[in-house]
């Protein structure tokens, strides 16, 4: 082995075998191989059955389990908070939602689009509040005593807030059902004719609405229609 070849390291030979050697090194190695049979033994000592390795590895791919990723709206990082999703979700409702079906009053579709953005964390992350104080204030705003809805069967009170629809106050009370499912009771004073509880599905959510002649009510959330219907009946009785 000449001096010029002695400096060719196993790392260099590896790079050569992997096609990663720069041109000058590659030429040098090829020349050494052509002139010196013993030099070839150094390459043999680095032999790797690459094709076989790749075949064997390919078999392992078939064992990969199915991947489950969380739905997009649960994602909270990347500066895209649930709060932001809710805030701009209203805009989305206008921008991309299909025209509301004729059967529902406009406000119900908007409430449903809003509610559909709620995930468990939206509700469970809300700080605890004094329900009676909140409801007292909201009762004044909407002109209907709502103090009884702090306790509804199967629903944990999380927050009441005043929203607005066409210049009228719209009260939204957020609950968590079974500790997991966001459910909301919404109340608006719109003078709609009295009607009994009507079951419906809006935005993929179970819902029930009724009206007492001055106020309209909507209970909405989850997919369990019978739970919503039963709870709506209980709520109507309390109000």
């Amino acid at each position: 082995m000449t001096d010029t070849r002695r400096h060719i390291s196993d790392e260099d030979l590896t790079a050569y075998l992997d096609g990663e050697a720069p041109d000058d090194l590659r030429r040098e190695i090829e020349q050494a191989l052509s002139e010196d049979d013993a030099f070839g033994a150094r390459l043999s000592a680095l032999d790797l059955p690459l094709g076989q390795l790749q075949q064997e590895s390919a078999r392992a791919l078939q064992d990969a389990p199915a991947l489950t990723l969380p739905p997009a709206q649960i994602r909270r990082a990347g500066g895209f908070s649930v709060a932001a999703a809710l805030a701009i979700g209203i805009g989305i409702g206008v921008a991309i939602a299909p025209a509301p079906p004729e059967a529902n009053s406009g406000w119900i579709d908007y409430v449903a689009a809003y509610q559909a953005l709620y995930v468990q964390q939206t509700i469970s992350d809300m700080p605890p509040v004094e329900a009676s104080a909140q409801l007292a204030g909201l009762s004044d705003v909407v002109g209907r005593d709502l103090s009884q809805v702090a306790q509804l069967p199967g629903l944990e009170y999380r927050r009441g807030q005043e929203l607005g629809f066409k210049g009228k106050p719209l009260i939204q009370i957020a609950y968590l059902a079974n500790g997991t499912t966001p459910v909301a009771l919404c109340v608006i004073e719109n003078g709609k004719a009295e009607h009994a509880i009507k079951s419906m599905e809006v935005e993929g959510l179970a819902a029930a609405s009724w009206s007492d002649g001055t106020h309209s009510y909507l209970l909405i959330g989850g997919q369990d229609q019978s739970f919503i219907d039963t709870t709506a009946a209980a709520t109507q009785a309390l109000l």
Partner: protein
Amino acid sequence: MRSQFRCSRDKNTPKGIVIRWLRKKDRDSAIRGEITRVYPRLWRYCVAICKSREDGGDLAQAACLRAIEKQDQFEPGTAFDKWIFTIAKRVWLNELRSQKVRRGSGLILVEDADLPDNKPSSETNIFAGEVLSEVMALPEAQRETVLLVYVEGFSYKDTAAILDIPIGTVMSRLAAARKTIASRFGEHGGVS
């Protein structure tokens, strides 16, 4: 408190925000598509690194979730697989590996990463192939490098970036691994 709810029908809907959100949504779906495409390879790599189906599955899942969270940092037009493998490596190094070592089921301590790994890996019999099992017996540092270059097909440069090591280290790990494997096949009269 009145919220933006009222704005829903007004002309002053924050259109710019909506457009950005939609773009983000497109980006999110694109990232999810890429993750799904790369996932089997990522899973294989993670299981091989952890030498455990359970831990490897956790690592792959954690890397996918991290990729969704950090999707803003992905530069479109660059190699997605390189990006998510880098994430997996970081998650493994910074979080899961130390937990695994702490809870006593760690196969290797950080300082032992260059020592041969002869612990049994009954959970990883998917790697039972003749050559692959030799790769699995390599020290972790060599094993991960061999997998990235020879199995996943990354260049030296990309592998160095994924592992956050100099290219020279990639080369020395590969050379050492090649020597070990070539000698074992010689001894056992394996594949020529």
